[in-house]
């Protein structure tokens, strides 16, 4: 069973809670995905409107674990303060650490990410860093205390799938014992299956489900793809080859010339 910081999880699909047509559809999608963990965030709350209180009620009713993020943070200081605020509100040491570099690609500021991960780990957090597939950065994150890595598949919300299969495969080979989660950029269930077939431990996605025409059906589709991809990985799939290899035995074939 997959363990993330000593917490055993059944499902290898982590789902975001944003961008759904309604809170009810979000809740149905989470159930259809059969996931154990959802990502959440923090935003400014009005003393009168209190939108956040209603949302938190919805999430608590689901009875599953939350992974708060630091989405939108562009500096180490912002990310660390947001993580500290999230820990108090959500009551968990887990944090999906995002330090964003570029507004167009939302790619991580890997230098800030490593620095923030070090600060937060020393402060008792269990950090899930949203990173790239760069091996050097991954090593720095592990040195900083990260026991899980979350490389992107593609830019957040882009639905492009796995942009750098070679890089992701290398990362998997380089860190055989660290839980690796492909986070972001997936569009369709086959992307998730491909990540799992590479040996990734889980996938985290949001937009591909939330913005689908039928989010609940798509959540179900992703759940099946993740399960299929994992089973395929465990079943030790064939390596591709260039030439054909007959599947029907040649021995014993009739001579009919």
């Amino acid at each position: 069973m997959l363990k993330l910081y000593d917490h055993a999880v059944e499902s290898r699909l982590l789902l975001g809670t944003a961008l759904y047509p309604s809170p009810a559809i979000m809740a149905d999608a989470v159930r259809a995905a059969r996931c154990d963990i959802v990502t959440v965030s923090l935003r400014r709350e009005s003393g009168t409107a209190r939108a956040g209180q209603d949302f938190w009620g919805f999430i608590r009713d689901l009875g599953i674990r939350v992974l708060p993020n630091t989405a939108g943070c562009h500096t180490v200081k912002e990310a660390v303060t947001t993580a500290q605020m999230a820990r108090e509100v959500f009551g968990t040491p887990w944090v999906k650490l995002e330090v964003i570099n570029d507004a167009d690609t939302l790619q991580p500021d890997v230098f800030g990410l490593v620095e923030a991960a070090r600060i937060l780990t020393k402060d008792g957090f269990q950090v899930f860093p949203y990173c790239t597939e760069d091996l050097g950065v991954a090593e720095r994150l592990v040195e900083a205390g990260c026991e899980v890595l979350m490389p992107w598949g593609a830019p957040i919300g882009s639905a492009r799938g796995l942009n750098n299969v070679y890089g992701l495969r290398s990362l998997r080979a380089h860190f055989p014992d660290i839980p690796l989660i492909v986070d972001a950029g997936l569009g369709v269930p086959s992307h998730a299956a491909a990540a799992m077939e590479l040996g990734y431990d889980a996938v985290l996605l949001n937009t591909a489900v939330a913005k689908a025409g039928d989010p609940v059906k798509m959540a179900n589709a992703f759940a099946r793809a993740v399960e299929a991809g994992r089973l395929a990985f465990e079943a030790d799939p064939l390596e591709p080859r260039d030439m054909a290899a007959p599947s029907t035995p040649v021995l014993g074939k009739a001579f009919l010339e």
Partner: protein
Amino acid sequence: MSIIVNGEPHECAPSSLAALLTDLGYGDAIVATALNGDFVPADARGETAVADGDRVEILAPMQGG
């Protein structure tokens, strides 16, 4: 004095950060607070003074990816 709360100026004179939250109607809402960019734990709000020009952030759970 003027305090910037979630980006908006407020004219008020609270005795502490906890008093400010009460004055603004947060009551028992589940929120986290920061003062001038630094986290202020809930149990420290009562002894945390706010001064003219301070920036206060009051955040709550929200959807996230």
